[in-house]
Structure formats: structure tokens, C-alpha cells
């Protein structure tokens, strides 16, 4: 039984942002998540775009938070020490109908206060993006569109919250929530939390959690999107995010550089029943490919390094729900946080934190620690910086991941972060070890052994991505003794 002021359910981009915002107040806060790490839901599997805000219908919460949130990102990322790049975006049109849509988007964007929007014609488009389909007739140029690494932001926000006193617990799926004796009782698979306020930031499981504390039952559509991620390259075929014009047929897929120099292609959209089903499918992947071909006729996925999918939480109202819950005193929620949820998260978090602070009459802390991922990745250092880094810490001289040039010092540091990595995937997302073209083929044995050393456990306990997903089955000695299966 754990007594705390606030329980936040979900450690994705929204949950970590809310935790960080609330950590500025005098309150005890616990974040629980069913997964084994931060950002294991939609936060690790989306396009990584900070939308400029031309898409959202004025007057909606999506528009409000998108505009506010996207403006917060440059400072937020700088403060957390994570990458942010305003690479710009194009929304492309192939017909008069498309141009009509672009004009609507342009008007909407101006209403939403998006700077620098302009319609451009074919020759200028192809000058900007020579690999684009030459049949393009017009495009909306969106210079303020940006790209980020969503899970790195969530890691850094969690670390920031943790150094300011927030406690994180993983592998704790919430099984029930009850209101008794003026407090909330949040039961997870292994603990019970008694708190005054509960905040639902559970992403794709948002409706499931909502229905535990509210009589107004909610249903949610789980919309899966699949992606291709191509290898890093000094020259990518596209230098900015290219969106297709939304049509009756759907939103279209995007092709975009990532902050790490990869190219991302996707997503499709398919409604599924299980919010945790993040498998990719042959059909989905081929749909992504064929649709992306409209943007990039010479499309090649020869340098594909991985496919993945994420599940977006879609509400029938097609808008976010943010705030307190009628009839459930002390319950707050941010649900239906699909696109532009990443762009909106910091703004949603500020609002929610304010509401919770008001409700609990919290006072601001007198001193706050600002956490920042201070060390520059070895991969990005100059020769002089590398020389200095290795001389200060010889473990920088041990390159564990060849493809992404990640050092032993960096991997150990990732495990020692305030909310440190506990899994091979956790190391991968914090350091990029295993994120490259060999996909961990060379480094995973070494990463696994560093993890077991740092965590003080046997190699047998090490998982790829948490849960029961152990990397190895047993020792050679155990198998030799047990196995007669070759008979």
C-alpha cells in the first residue's frame, strides 16, 4: 500500500509531461505504467512531427493545444538537451481538388496563427525537393513544421520529473480504480496506491482506464499505423516532411527525415480491436509503400532497417478530452491523444497540472532542478571532443555499437539515468545502440552483458523490451544436461 498525493497512469509523452509539470509543485507523485519503460506505447511509434498547426479545426482542443504546444517545443527540447529540428514541411497537391483542400488548410493555418505559410508551384517544389513526384502541381509550404525524437523527449521529461521527486513504477498494469473515504484506490497487478488525485494519461488504454473511475462509459477506436524506417544517410531523398493532401480516401502517408538522419515512411490507418497489438502486417506495409509512391515515385526500401507500428487512441468526437471528470472528484484525464498529440503534450500537461494543483491547492516548490541530457552523443562529437571525452573517461574508447558509434560509457550512463534503461530496447532508444543497419546483431550480446553488470543480475534476466521477453533461454551447461532432443 503506497500513500501518495497523485497517481499518473501512463508514462508516455503525455504522462511524462504531466509528471514533469506537476513536479514543480509540493506534492508526492507516482507514475505507473503497464510496460517496462517510458514511452512504450504510441510515443515510441509515431512520425515524430511537431505539427505547425494548419490541420486542426479552429475551436477544437486539438487546435488549441497543437498551437500552444508546438511553440513550447524549441525551448523545451533545448532545456532537456534533446534534438529538435525545424526542417519545414510541404503538403502536396496533384489536382484542382487537392488545391482546393490546400487553400482550406492555408486559411485554417492562418486562423491558427501558423507563420510563413504560402502556396507554391511545381518548379519551386521540385527545386526544394527534387525527388518528389514531378506530377505535383502545387504545395503548401510550412516552414515552421519540425521534427523531434518523441521517446527521447519522454525519457528526458521523466528524468526531469524524477530528479524533482516523482517516482516511476513499471510493469504495473492498473487492474481497478475505486473511490472510497474521499480518496482514490488505484490497484495495479502488484501494488495498491492510495491517492487524492488520479490522472489518466494511458494513451491507447485511455478508455479502459476511464471506465474504471467513471460511470459515463467511453469507447475508443484503436487506430494502428505502420511504418518503414530507412537507414541513416548523409543525403536523404527528402530534406523536409512531405505530407500528402488529405482526401476522402484518407490522410495519406508522409515521408520525412528524422532528427537522427533516417527517413521515416508511413503511417497507414487501420482500426483494430486490441490496443496493444502493434504487429506489422504484409497488407499494411504494402499499403504504406504503395501510398508513399505517390510522393516518391522512385521509392526504395532497400535500406530499410526496421518496420514498426503504433496504435493511436481515436475518439468518435475526433477531439482530445482534457480536464477533470464529472462525477469523479480528483480524477483528471487526457484521452484521445492521437495526432497532433505529440505536438500538444507540453501544453496539455501545463493545463492539466494547473487544474490538479488548483484542485489539491498545491503550492509551488521553492527550488526546482532542471534536468538536461547534458552529454553530446559521441557520434556527433568532433575529433577534438572525442579525444577529450576518451581522456576523461576511457570507457568512451570502447565502441559498443558500430553502426551508430555508441560507447560503453554512454550505455552505462543510460542505465544510470534517473529513470534508467532496464532493457535492450531501453538502451537502444536512449543511446541508439542497436538502432542502426545491423539492428543489434553485433552489439546486443555486449549490451546485454553491460546491463546484467549494471543491474547486478544474471544475463538470463535480461529482456529485449521488458515483460517476459527474455533474450536468452539458458546456459550451454543447462541445455547439455537437459537436452536429449537430438535423438
Amino acid at each position, binding site marked *: 500500500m503506497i500513500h501518495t498525493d497523485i497517481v499518473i497512469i501512463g508514462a508516455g509523452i503525455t504522462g511524462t509531461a504531466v509528471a514533469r509539470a506537476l513536479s514543480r509543485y509540493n506534492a508526492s507523485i507516482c507514475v505507473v505504467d503497464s510496460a517496462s519503460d517510458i514511452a512504450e506505447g504510441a510515443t515510441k511509434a509515431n512520425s515524430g512531427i511537431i505539427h505547425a498547426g494548419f490541420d486542426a479545426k479552429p475551436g477544437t482542443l486539438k487546435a488549441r493545444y497543437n498551437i500552444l504546444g508546438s511553440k513550447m517545443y524549441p525551448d523545451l527540447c533545448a532545456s532537456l538537451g534533446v534534438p529538435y529540428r525545424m526542417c519545414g514541411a510541404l503538403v502536396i497537391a496533384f489536382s484542382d481538388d487537392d488545391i482546393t483542400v490546400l487553400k482550406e488548410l492555408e486559411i485554417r493555418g492562418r486562423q491558427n496563427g501558423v507563420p510563413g505559410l504560402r502556396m507554391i508551384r511545381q518548379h519551386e517544389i521540385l527545386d526544394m525537393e527534387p525527388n518528389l513526384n514531378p506530377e505535383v502541381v502545387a504545395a503548401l509550404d510550412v516552414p515552421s513544421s519540425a521534427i523531434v525524437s518523441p521517446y527521447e523527449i519522454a525519457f528526458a521529461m521523466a528524468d526531469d520529473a524524477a530528479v524533482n521527486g516523482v517516482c516511476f513504477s513499471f510493469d504495473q498494469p492498473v487492474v481497478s480504480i475505486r473511490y472510497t473515504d474521499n480518496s482514490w484506490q488505484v490497484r495495479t497487478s502488484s501494488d495498491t496506491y492510495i491517492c487524492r488525485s488520479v490522472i489518466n494519461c494511458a494513451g491507447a488504454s485511455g478508455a479502459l482506464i476511464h471506465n474504471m473511475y467513471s460511470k459515463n462509459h467511453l469507447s475508443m477506436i484503436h487506430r494502428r499505423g505502420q511504418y518503414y524506417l530507412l537507414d541513416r544517410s548523409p543525403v536523404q531523398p527528402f530534406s523536409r516532411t512531405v505530407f500528402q493532401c488529405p482526401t476522402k480516401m484518407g490522410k495519406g502517408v508522409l515521408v520525412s527525415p528524422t532528427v537522427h538522419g533516417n527517413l521515416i515512411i508511413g503511417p497507414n490507418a487501420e482500426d483494430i480491436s486490441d490496443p496493444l497489438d502493434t504487429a506489422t502486417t504484409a497488407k499494411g506495409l504494402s499499403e504504406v509503400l504503395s501510398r508513399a509512391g505517390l510522393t516518391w515515385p522512385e521509392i526504395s526500401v532497400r535500406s530499410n532497417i526496421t518496420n514498426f507500428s503504433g496504435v493511436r487512441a481515436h475518439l468518435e468526437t475526433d477531439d482530445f478530452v482534457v480536464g477533470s471528470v464529472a462525477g469523479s472528484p480528483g480524477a483528471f484525464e487526457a484521452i484521445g491523444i492521437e495526432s497532433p498529440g505529440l505536438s500538444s503534450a507540453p501544453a496539455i500537461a501545463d493545463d492539466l497540472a494547473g487544474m490538479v494543483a488548483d484542485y489539491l491547492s498545491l503550492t509551488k516548490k521553492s527550488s526546482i532542478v532542471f534536468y538536461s541530457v547534458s552529454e553530446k552523443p559521441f557520434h556527433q562529437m568532433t575529433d577534438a571532443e572525442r579525444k577529450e571525452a576518451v581522456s576523461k573517461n576511457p570507457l568512451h574508447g570502447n565502441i559498443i555499437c558500430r553502426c551508430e558509434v555508441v560507447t560503453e560509457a554512454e550505455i552505462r550512463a543510460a542505465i544510470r539515468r534517473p529513470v534508467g534503461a532496464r532493457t535492450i530496447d531501453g538502451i537502444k532508444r536512449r543511446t541508439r545502440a542497436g538502432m542502426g543497419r545491423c539492428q543489434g546483431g553485433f552489439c546486443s550480446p555486449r549490451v546485454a552483458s553491460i546491463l546484467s553488470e549494471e543491474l547486478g543480475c544474471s*544475463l538470463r534476466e535480461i529482456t529485449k523490451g521488458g515483460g517476459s*521477453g527474455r533474450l536468452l533461454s539458458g546456459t550451454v551447461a543447462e541445455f547439455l544436461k537437459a537436452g536429449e532432443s537430438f535423438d
Partner: protein
Amino acid sequence: MTDQYVDILIIGAGPAGLAAAISARESGMESVLVLERESEPGGILRQCIHNGFGLHRFHEELTGPEYAQRDIDRIRELDIRVECGVTVLSLSAQRIVTCVSPVYGFRTIRAGAVVLAMGCRERPRGALCTPGTRCAGIFSAGTAQRFVNLEGWMPGKRVVILGSGDIGLIMARRMTLQGANVLACVEIMPYSSGLNRNIVQCLQDYDIPLYLSHTVTDIRGRDRLEGLTVSRVDENRNPVPGTEIDFECDTLLLSCGLIPENELSSGAGVEISGITAGPVVNNHFETSVPGIFACGNVLHVHDLVDHVSDESFKAGRAAASFVNSNNVSIGFITIKDGAGVRGTVPQKIRLDLSENTELMFRPSAVFRNATVIAEADGKVIAQKKAMIFTPGEMASITLKPKDISSVSGNSLTIRIESED
């Protein structure tokens, strides 16, 4: 300013790097340095504990560690410096290398000649675009081999192998012998890319079924692999609906091809062949950048380590002669792949060829009773018959200096002509 100068710098202490170092020293080079990122020399041979290495070179069947040890012993006899735990970060066209190690720190080294011997890596799942979940239990065959043979850990109990390349076949036997249950080996092509003897001794000996023209079409399991689906494919390698076979397994090993690891080479501006994925070289194994040589699996993927050693001895000698004399060629003939031939190495031959040169390539399909022909200006200048050519086995043809002097144009085509 660099921290250090060496005559010959060799990147990688696998079989290629060791052989190049030995021959460079034997050609009179005093200052030879080998940089190795692993903690010991020997490269991938360290984990290839099965036998079958060295039949050509030593006329006996050695295991991988034994084969490597012979070169390591020779390296010690010759007192050649091999630094382990050193990762090369960059290479420039001026043959300046930056490298790091926990022991020696960050260094820049300038070299009279550089021999690239970094080897290759395995094609990962991403490159196959196999749909399904991204759970634990999916390994490239070589990673699994390392876990078992070098770390002493078994990746899983019930195993399916995708790809019938030699590493996959060898791992089918290894996993079985060490106590796991190998359910199937699945190959997308209508033939195996592995050696015949491995099909017999690694699959048939243990009654492991080989599914040709099949591939994995779904992967299931949230945290750890729970099962997968295998489907037959048509001539265009597309899965045929209705042919699905489900396997309950906790491990999938991928043996779907090797890719030469040329990130450093590209950084130096070395021209890379789109076919071999290795550097374009002349018959001295010199790349498009003067003084940078390449040999072994970084140049093109071999089936036999004996050939790697042989090629690397030549590359080491050539690097030494570059440092000694800067022996400039009067020009080159370009070698082109003709019908039935892929990835001929070397891609260029000196016009003033002074010794016999072996051209190695991969047949693009299975040819029986066929002839490999070297042809220039419509004239056959050399030919060699064989009962069979298969993509799984590298083939070669040797050209003599007089063959080259008879060529009047600037190119020569290698092709396979089948009588069937």
C-alpha cells in the same frame, strides 16, 4: 598533425587482416600495425567452432579457432603488432585514420598504405521487411552463434531458421547438438545458397526439414516469440495464400545474406560496387583511392576462408609494394559481368599484367555442363569448363599476362555459357 605513422595499417584482425599483415611483413615491411575492435584477434572464425576450414590451404580440416590460431601464431613469430579493443572511427583518402580504445585513447594514425579487412555483417530482419511483432527471440544466425559458442548462452529451445545460407545450416546443427529443437529451415529461393555438405551434415543428419521456395510471413508473440507462419512463395517470391504452415517456436534465426561492411571505405571516397557491395578493386586489390587496398569479406562475401587468406596475402604484398615503389600502372582493362555472372572481382586488370590473375565471381543461377568464358572484342581469350556452377559456390577463371596483352579494347566480359 597525426599522432603516429605506420607503413602498413590493416583494419581488422580476422583471417583477411592477419593474412595481409603476414604477407606485408614477409614482403619486407617493418612497420605494420593491425587494429582490431574485438578483444582478441581471429575475427568471426573465433565463433565458427565447426570443422571444415583449411582444406585448400593446410590440406586438413580445422575448426575456425584452430585455423585462426595458425595465423595468430605466425603473426607472433613475425612480431607484428596487433592492437585489440581498438575501433577505427574514420578513414580519409589521405590514409589518415582516427581510432579509439580504452587503453590507447583517441589517436590519428597516418599510413603509407591501408588494407581494409573489416569483414561483413548479417542482413537483419528489417532488410527482409517480414511482418509481425518485434518480440525477443529473433536473432541473426551469427549473433546466436556468438551467444552459444563464445558466451555460453542458448538463445532458445524451439528454433526455426530462415535462410539456408551456410551460417544458418551450421547453426541448425549447433542448436540441435547443444540440446535445442530445430523445427525447420526455410529458404525463399528454389535452391539452397549453402554448401551441399552442409545440407547433408547439418540438416539431413538430424532430420531437419528444408522448405525450399518458402518464407516466414508472420511473426507472433508480444514479449517473446511464440510462433510464426511459413508460406510457399511463387516464382516472384510472393507468398501463395493457402500454403501457410504454423510453427510454435521461441526462436527465429535469420541467415539471409551477408553485407560487406564498408562505411569506413565510403568515408574515404572509395568507390563501392553496387553488385558486390564491396570496393571496386584492380588486380592488386587496390581500391579507387590510391594506397587503400581491400580483401576478404569486406571486398566480396566468400564461402571459404581459404580463399580469403589467399586473396589477402596478395593484397598485403601489393600494399607493401605500393609503399616501396608507388608502382604506377600504364592503364587498366575493365572487367564486366556478362550473362550468368555476378560481381566479378577484381573489376580492373592492369594492361601490363605480370602474373596470372584469378577472377572470382558468383554464378547468377545453377548451370550444368557449362563454360565460363572471358571475351574481349567478340573474341574468346580464355575459357574453363565445369560440370556445375551454383550461386552458393564462388567460381573463378584465371587470366594470363598474354591473355591480357591480346586484348585491344579497354574491356573484357566474363560470362557463362551453358550447353543445356
